[in-house]
């Protein structure tokens, strides 16, 4: 038994002495990303591109929790030991794990922490005030302007009386978004038909449940549904049910249109924030930002397959049209 113990202790040491040393003048940025996912990966890419363009040499320590909360917390502890100049936490669970680590490790109380791809930073307990975060945590929120999204769909379908929405009721972000959407549809006198899923494999069935109930379908920035977007697009095509998304990455995957939440731009915005902090800005007084520049993307083949005629005004406004 002793031998085994010694053996495992040796293994610990062997793998332990492996942290690579970066160039001395380079900034160290540790990344706690919750899950590997095209939109979240884009956030990181945008962040890195922005910092590079602003002339910062950065040594990245990227960790991915593979959608496991225990791992996200383990990563948070790992990051404390990396003594980074700044931490980027991508998605709500990772941001919460980092926030708790700050509370528990006095050495982290001076390290700026930026969150990204968090829809409801107040509800998640990350900041006490969006304008004045107060501590070392601030970031960019991917809260989408729901009023503009609904207005866009109504431009495509002026006669619409019922809108379907499909989301994972277990995602805090999605729940917050659908609550906002409900406020907007109520105002417009449109009936909101909800279909909820618990995992990606439920998307196909949930999409079919909307056929006949809704005249169009909207997908918020929901990790579960977006990862199975093709299944949803197929159901909508087969039933001539127009499909709209909240992020432009879903347009080439089969949505008729999206008023562009671009996660790459979202990442760049967080990168610009990081650059300001490196130049001396205080996170405590740096307000939480949401994306302002929205771009309209339209997918013509998808529109045709779902029986949508696109008003000329929208075609003129589109930033990108897929033929």
């Amino acid at each position: 038994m002793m031998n085994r113990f010694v053996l495992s202790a040796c293994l610990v040491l062997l793998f332990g002495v492996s942290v690579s040393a970066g160039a001395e003048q380079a900034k160290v940025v540790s990344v706690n990303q919750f899950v590997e996912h095209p939109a979240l990966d884009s956030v990181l890419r945008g962040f890195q591109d922005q910092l590079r363009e602003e002339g910062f040499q950065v040594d990245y320590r990227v960790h991915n929790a593979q959608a496991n909360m225990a791992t996200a917390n383990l990563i948070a502890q790992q990051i404390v030991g990396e003594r980074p100049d700044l931490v980027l936490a991508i998605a709500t669970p990772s941001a919460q794990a980092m926030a708790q680590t700050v509370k528990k490790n006095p050495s982290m109380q001076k390290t700026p922490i930026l969150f990204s791809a968090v829809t409801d930073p107040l509800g998640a307990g990350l900041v006490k005030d969006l304008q004045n975060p107060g501590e070392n945590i601030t970031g960019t929120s991917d809260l989408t302007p729901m009023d503009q999204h609904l207005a866009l769909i109504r431009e495509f379908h002026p006669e619409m009386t019922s809108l379907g929405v499909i989301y994972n009721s277990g995602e805090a972000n999605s729940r917050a978004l659908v609550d906002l959407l409900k406020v907007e549809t109520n105002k417009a006198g449109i009936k909101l038909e909800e279909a909820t899923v618990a995992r990606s494999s439920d998307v196909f069935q949930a999409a079919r449940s909307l056929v006949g109930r809704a005249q169009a379908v909207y997908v918020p920035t929901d990790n579960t549904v977006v990862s199975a977007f093709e299944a949803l697009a197929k159901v909508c095509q087969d039933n001539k049910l127009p499909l709209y998304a909240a992020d432009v990455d879903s347009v080439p995957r089969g949505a008729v249109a999206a008023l562009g939440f671009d996660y790459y731009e979202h990442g760049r915005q967080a990168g610009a924030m990081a650059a300001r902090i490196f130049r001396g800005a205080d996170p405590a007084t740096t307000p939480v930002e949401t994306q302002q520049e929205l771009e309209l993307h339209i997918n013509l083949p998808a529109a045709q397959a779902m029986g949508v005629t696109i008003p000329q005004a929208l075609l003129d406004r589109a930033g990108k049209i897929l033929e």
Partner: protein
Amino acid sequence: MTWYALLGAVEQGLVYGIMVLGVYLTFRVLNFPDLTVDGSLPLGAAVCAVAITSGIDPFLSLFLAMFAGFLAGMVTGFLNTKLGILHLLASILTMIALYSINIRVMSGPNVSLLGRDTILDPLMGLGLPGYLSSIVLFSFIGAAIVIFLIWFLHTEFGQTMLATGDNPRMITSQGVNTHSVIIIGVGLSNAMVAFSGALIAQNQGAADVNMGVGTIVAGLASVIVGETVFGRGGIMRAVIAALLGSILYRLAIAMALSMKLGAFSFTPSDLNLITALLVVLALTAPKIKARFFS
């Protein structure tokens, strides 16, 4: 691996270790593979978080969580024994039902505890940094539960549980009602899992409906790693091995996270693969050793 990462892994190992002790009780003692834990861990977290946010004392909240977990486990036991549903399926049914129930309990998928008083605050108030107070506290709680479990398994009821897992036919012929033993046993196991979930929520600053994903994998892997490294002879040794196995399992993941080997470098997405390989290594180590060193 840095000092903080090491401490972090020990902390995670201890706090999830209480869940592992619960899994040990069903998996090894009762011979009942119980997937309820993927749902009862977040249930404990949810109950505890809601209790704390509505003003109930953080310590008292732990017991409410434990009670909720006990009920959830009893449901699985009931489905299995009284309704005759296969144990694996019975536990899956309870697990998926708990997903919806947990969202109901929290009236949403996530309850934040950031900025709330938790059981860690009294210790941190004494001047101990947070990352150490959690280790001190969880060692204490882990030791208490290990002692309770060893005592419990030596009581008459505990011995009946061991016999029920070993040979249900024999124990039935001796006039013991295995149904109630299984219902209470699975209930007790899930009470421990929910207790663990409640501690995790207080430690990580939030309860989330998805935090249970993979609990059973971690639980079984920890039990097996513990057995492989520390042996499984005798109740006392097996129970302690389960808790230590949990720490080794988290250390293995922490190692995988900080691994960089020469020109070939792992990407973050390799983490699950590396974790699986480490567990396979733990499982096969005794056989390899027997083949080459005997």
